[in-house]
């Protein structure tokens, strides 16, 4: 009987202890934009090395249903998410705007561009007429292609636009042009010995040097839990600092959470991104108003949005940790 009482008391104490510990940590759900990749490494490192735990955050990183991240963060199903400047601007142009804001840029410059198979010898936008572009049906895609072609005095209607989820192998066949991320798709091609011609979009039009990807949160978090947002970014920054200092080590960490990729691929991608996360900035995650305004103006010019949107509604640097 004594033993039983002792056991019960011990269990009760344990339960109290757990409850106390729970009160100190905050449950956080981060919703990615896509399958886990090297854009996300810093967050996985912060999770794996306990940086989030040190900030009292119990973080869970989940992959999204396609295209639902912004909506899920807007309604509070996740506190943080990974998104793109284009989508955030688009989401703010609705009659009922999504209450989301960017709080940190994961990569300072747009590292994406238009690619073609080397064998087709498409070396500049001048070669685009009569070709086929395969994309994902994003709102800004058509505008970007129209803009870069018209800047060269070309007829955009002569570019055949299709939506397709095919992979790079299609570039050898009916598809001529696709939009790739340097750190991911292009390294996949490289490892497969598939040679590409690459035109970085930011070199085609400086307004296209927008932030992709960024971390977002919702207005409820900004208004009611600013400390959580700041702690989350503090720990996240540490993860990305590690990724910059030790690309290969952090690629191995990512590989634990994304085991379907070869370590070689992740290392190559990580090495490429190491100096891109903080290119041209001293403070991790910082965003420039001019970058937001430029692309909003671009979207307005091409009728993607009905009116100009104040950049303050789209992003904030206020939660970023100071540079050390």
């Amino acid at each position, binding site marked *: 009987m004594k033993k039983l009482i002792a056991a019960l008391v011990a269990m009760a104490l344990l339960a109290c202890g757990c409850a106390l510990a729970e009160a100190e940590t905050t449950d956080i759900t981060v919703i990615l934009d896509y399958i886990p990749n090297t854009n996300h490494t810093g967050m996985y490192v912060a999770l794996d090395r306990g940086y989030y735990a040190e900030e009292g955050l119990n973080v869970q990183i989940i992959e999204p249903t396609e295209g639902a991240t*912004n909506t899920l963060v807007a309604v509070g199903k996740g506190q943080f998410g990974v998104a793109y400047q284009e989508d955030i601007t688009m989401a703010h142009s609705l009659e009922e705007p999504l209450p989301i804001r960017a709080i940190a840029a994961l990569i300072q410059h747009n590292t994406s561009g238009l690619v073609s198979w080397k064998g087709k010898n498409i070396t500049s936008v001048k070669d685009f007429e009569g070709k086929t572009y395969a994309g994902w049906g994003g709102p800004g895609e058509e505008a970007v292609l129209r803009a870069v072609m018209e800047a060269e005095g070309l007829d955009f209607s002569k570019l055949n636009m299709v*939506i397709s989820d*095919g*992979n790079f192998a*299609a570039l050898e066949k*009916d598809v001529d042009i696709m939009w790739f991320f340097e750190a991911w798709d292009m390294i996949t091609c490289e490892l497969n010995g598939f040679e590409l011609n690459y035109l970085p979009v930011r070199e085609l039009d400086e307004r296209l040097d927008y932030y992709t990807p960024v971390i977002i949160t919702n207005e409820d978090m900004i208004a009611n839990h600013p400390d959580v947002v700041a702690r989350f970014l503090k720990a996240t920054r540490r993860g990305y600092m590690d990724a910059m200092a030790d690309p290969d080590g952090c690629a191995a960490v990512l590989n634990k959470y994304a085991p379907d990729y070869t370590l070689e691929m992740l290392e190559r991608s990580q090495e490429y991104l190491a100096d891109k996360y903080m290119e041209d900035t001293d403070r991790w995650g910082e965003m420039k108003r001019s970058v937001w305004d430029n692309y909003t103006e671009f979207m307005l010019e091409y009728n993607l949005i009905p009116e100009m949107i104040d950049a303050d509604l789209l992003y904030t640097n206020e939660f970023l940790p100071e540079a050390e």
Partner: protein
Amino acid sequence: MHPFPACAKAHAGFALLRSDRQVFSGLNMNRRSLYPALAMAALIVLWEILVRALGVPSYVLPAPTQVLKALYTDRAALLAHSAVTVGEALGGMGISLVCAILLGILMDASEGVKACVYPVLVVTQTVPMIVLSPILILYLGFGAAPKILTVVLMCFFPVVVSFADGMAQVDPNYVNLIRSYGGSALQVYTQVKIPYALPALFSGLKVAATYSISGAVVGEWVASQSGIGYYLLRVKNSYALDKMFASVLVIIALSLMMNGLIWIISRICLPYLNRKRGGNKK
């Protein structure tokens, strides 16, 4: 007097019910379509009330009135994209029908063919589209071909299976009768087996018709530059949920139309189905 009054009442009730059914069969028909219509309308009204009462944001779930508005304002685009999708669905259905008739006869004529082909057919129904899509793009490009093939992959199976089953269920005495009069194998099919299997074939076609539009939409998701599936992807990427739901309404309407089309054709090809019904009424 009936020894069991309650039973007598029940009998009278049954009699009444039966005569009711005969006299008011028109009313029953109305009920059959009235009840689901009422239930559907009630659901839509409930949806509207809930969305408004709970203040659900339109980027989560648009109200039916918003969807109808989007359907109206975007009607020109929806119509143009629908035409493309319907064309693909009809093309796929046509190919499915021709192939199903040929393969169905082969399967019926030879157990060997049936044993070889049937498992393959089942397998085609289990391969997820996401696996096939890169291959479809590589070899068929972006025209109508990959969408039509997707429709065929989804529609061929129910048609061939129901047609082959229909022929397998022909009373062997009929076949023997034709044979005993010296009928050829061809005559066995044209005189007995195919006519007998037609109702089964049409059942299969009705199932296939319902799938055909979704099949074309899935094909458009693989690679496209027009069609309802293409429209759906574009508006989804722009957070235009009202337009997305509007395109779903269009998909539903088109699927029902395809189903109705098969029903009309079946009534034309099999007029005895109408006669049977008329006979019942008398």
